[in-house]
Structure formats: C-alpha cells, structure tokens
C-alpha cells in the first residue's frame, strides 16, 4: 500500500470529485451535550463528540462549531418592504464555518479491505473550504515514535506522521508538513503474490521517507514530496530536493522519481546523478544525468547507473572510470571525496 492510499483514509468518497462545484456537503454530528451561544454564533459540544461527512468520521472529547456572522440589515430590509426576501437572504448567509474537535481526535474512513485511521489531538473542519486540518500528537503514540508532535496516519501496516495534515475533502488531496512515512508493503519478501513461497528472499527492510512537505493527489495517483527528501531503506539513504511517488489503481507503489540532483549512500558506496528513478516492481534504482558511482576508491561514470537493491548488483551503461586494485581500495581519493 502507498502514501496515496493513506491519503484515501481521510479523503471523501470518490464520487465527491464530481461535486467540486456543488455546495459544500452537510455534516452530521453528535455529542452528549450541546450548548448554543446564538449571539456569538457558536456552539459547544461535550462528551463523545462525533462528526460525519459521507464516510469520513471524526471523533473527539469536545468540539466547537462556529457559524457565519449575519450581516446587518440594509435600510430597505428595516423598512419592511421586502421582509420575505430579506429573511431568505439571511437564511442563505447562515452556515457552518468551522467545526473544531479537541482531545483524542480519531479520524477514520471505513473500508472493507483495510482499516484506515488517523489520530491526533486537534482537528479543524473548515466548512467553506471543505478541508480538515489535523494537528497534535495522539493520546497513544506508536511505541517506536518518541517525542511525537504531530498526528499519525495508518492504513494496514503503513504509517505516516507529520506536523500537520490538511485534507481537501472535495479533491481528495492531502497536504502533510514534515512527513515521515513508513512503507511496509512495498518491501522485498512481503510481496503478497509471492506469499510463503518467497521464504528465501531477504528479510524485509522498512522504507522510510522524510521530507519538508507532502501533497497526496489521488486523482493523478501521485504523492509529491518536496524540500529535502530523504528515503531510508536499511543502510541505503537517498536524498534529493523533490520526489514524486506514483501508484497504480490498487494503491501500490509503482515508481519513485527523484529530480533536481540525487545522492545515494549505501555503506561505503555512494552515487550521484541529476535524477533517479526507482521501480518498485523490480526494486531497481536507476541514476541518470551524469551519474557517478563511488565505491571505496573506484569511480565509475556512464550514461546510466542501475542498482538492484536486493542483490546490491550494479550495472553501468557506457561505463568509464577508475578502478583501484584491492590493496589500494581504502586509500583516500581526491575524486571520491564527498563534495
């Protein structure tokens, strides 16, 4: 499964894309108690609060709903010449502007295939904008995530954390600030088709992606990571300024496209190139754009450098460079120095 599929967790149903120009969808709510303050255009809800918009459900301990302010009546409305129209106009203005849920916020979108949930401490539903902003750490954080400051998104085995998550409910897009994403299904050895027959494959290494921002675009089936993207897989680390992750219709990762200058480090091996493409099916990383490979004094250049991540095999097209004898491998090299 993929970050895009994680985005589906909080996104509204697919048919919503057809309603982009339609009026905002109504939201259902419930609580133990509800206190209205009409003059301040707000309502407080306490105890087992829930908010539902189609199949998106948000729960929490308490909430505040705020409504649009009525504009002052115009002179002709005061005079009573058109009281009916004036009342209608006011009715049209009135509506929910925000719904803020606090305390042990839980977001879920039911799915027959897998559980899709998100947890945080604070959620703001913006009625006119049709967005849901999730912030704050959940009450119960995963044990391996210390000092968590933001919400957690889960789908099956996959997990993503970030400082804040903004869900566009109509377009199914999700924006995540400072995302950290764990990809567990696209690993070697956990291929569902292979099943138990692939017992001899290497033990799965978790893939972790970090970036400054992430935008999940369900319609284009792409997750756009920007600002200091880092991909970790075992002792492999790939860095670049931007990366697009693409997915198939099932939500499975197909490719990772890194652009703008890519650096890959794996143990003593280091490779650079202007761009890199990772094929999730073959689990190969291809560097292009003046790619270079540095490996303990060896320097290889070529048109493209292909690395098979499972076997650590490297293929270089039109290779040229310098290979050191084994006894001189560890000597310092001016060419191989990190920039």
């Amino acid at each position, binding site marked *: 499964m993929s970050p895009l599929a994680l985005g589906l967790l909080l996104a509204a149903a697919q048919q919503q894309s057809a309603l982009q120009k339609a*009026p*905002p*969808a*109504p*939201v*259902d*709510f*419930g*609580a*133990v*108690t*509800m*206190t*209205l*303050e*009409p*003059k301040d255009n707000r309502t407080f*809800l306490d105890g087992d609060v829930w908010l539902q918009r189609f199949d998106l459900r948000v729960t929490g301990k308490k909430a505040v*709903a705020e*409504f*649009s302010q*009525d504009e002052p009546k115009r002179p002709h409305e005061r005079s009573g010449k058109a*009281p009916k129209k004036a*009342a209608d106009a*006011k*009715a*049209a*203005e*009135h*509506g*929910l*502007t925000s*719904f803020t849920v606090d305390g042990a916020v839980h977001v879920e979108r039911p799915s027959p295939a897998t559980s899709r949930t998100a947890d945080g401490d604070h959620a703001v539903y913006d*009625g*006119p*904008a*049709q967005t849901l902003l999730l912030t704050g750490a959940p009450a119960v954080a995963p044990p391996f995530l210390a000092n968590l400051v933001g919400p957690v998104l889960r789908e099956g085995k996959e997990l993503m954390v970030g400082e804040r998550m903004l869900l566009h409910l109509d377009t199914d897009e999700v924006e995540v600030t400072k995302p950290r994403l764990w990809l567990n299904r696209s690993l070697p050895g956990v291929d569902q088709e292979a099943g138990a027959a692939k017992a001899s494959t290497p033990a799965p290494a978790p893939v972790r992606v970090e970036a400054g921002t992430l935008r999940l675009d369900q319609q284009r089936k792409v997750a756009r990571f920007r600002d200091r993207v880092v991909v970790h897989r075992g002792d492999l680390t790939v860095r670049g300024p931007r990366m697009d992750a693409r997915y198939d219709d099932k939500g499975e990762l197909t490719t990772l496209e890194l652009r703008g200058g890519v650096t890959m480090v794996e143990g003593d091996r280091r490779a650079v190139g202007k761009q890199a493409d990772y094929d999730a099916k073959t689990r190969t990383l291809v560097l292009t754009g003046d790619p270079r490979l540095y490996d303990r004094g060896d320097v290889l250049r070529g048109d493209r450098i292909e690395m098979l991540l499972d076997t650590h095999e490297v293929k270089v097209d039109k290779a040229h460079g310098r290979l050191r004898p084994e006894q001189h491998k560890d000597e310092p090299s001016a060419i191989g120095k990190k920039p």
Partner: protein
Amino acid sequence: MRRQSPQAALAALLLLVGLAGCQKFFSPSSEGVGVVGRLAGEQEPADVVLRRLAFVRLADGRVAARGTAAEASYRQSASTVEAMSLSVELPPGSHAPADVGHLRITAPQASGDLTARTGLGWGGVDARAERGDHATTERVLIDGPGNRVTSPTLVDAAGPGYAVHGSSLTATADGRSIRLQGGVQGRLTPAPQAPHSPPPAVKKPARKRRKAP
C-alpha cells in the same frame, strides 16, 4: 364562589403570555412538577372563562407580545390561569432573538401560576421564526424567578444551516445560552465559500489642470 372581573382574568393571562414572552420557564424540578400536579387535579370551577380571545402586551409603549387563545380560565384561589390553543407572537428585539425575525410560539395547552411566576405549555409546543427556524417539543416549562426555560422532553429544531435533536433542553431567559443534553444529534450545512471579488479599483488622483499662461 367569588366571580372575578374579565379584566382580572385577562391580566392574569397577559402575565402568562409575558412569562412566555420572556422565555422564563422553570426547570423540571419538584416545584415545576408540583404545579403540573396541582393543575391536573384541579376540580374547582374557574372564576372567569374567556373564549376566542386576542391579546396584546405593551412594554414601554411598544408591542412586546401579541396572541390568541381559544379559551382561558382563571382561578383566583389557586392564582392560576389555563389556556387552550395558545398562540403568542413575539416581534424581533422584544423577547425573541433579534436575528431570527418574528417568533411565533403555539401550545395546545398552557397554564401559569401567577404567584410563583411559573408556567407550563404542553401537548406539543411549537416555535417558528421568520428566518425559518422551527422547534418542537412536547412540553416547555417556565421559571420566571430563575430566568430559565426548560423542556424535559425530546426537542427537535431546524433552521437555516442546521437541524438538531436533543433529549432535553435548558436555556437562559435571555436566550444567550441554550443547552441540549442527554444525547444530541444533528446536521450542519457549511457556509458557502465566499466568491472571489475583484480588488477595488484604485482611483487615480485627478490631475490639476494648469492654467494657460
């Protein structure tokens, strides 16, 4: 049995209307239940009975409330008044919230204790506002001294952008705070997104024409 003048009965009824207009309902306490029980067990015939009446309540020279009733009965010894098919209309800014327009409250049955300044409407109390708000509940209680309005029965309300269902209601007399409790559910319609308006045109300062030499 002493007979009271129609004016006294009307004054008593107006007080009830005034209580309703002020939204001073009493809570479902023992005091309130006591009023209901006493009225329900009332056997004494009314001192004054008025049928098909209309009334207006003035405050500071302005109409604070107006309404009608199919019948009103006044009992002086108990200091109570009962009304059937009561309808009260409150103009905006009097006792009703100003932004909902005229408010019309109807109750098939109503009663009031003039001494305690408490009242009760039952049999399906209905409130409709000019703006489009509509609320119904089986019973509404008025607590004048406590400045409270309560309904111990299910409450349904709907209006522009909202619909809500609660198990019971408590409100302050001035309507500043309305509390639904015992489990609340509802639906809210988001406000439409404000259309993008073009930036205001910047007026260029008029050039001063130089006089020809």
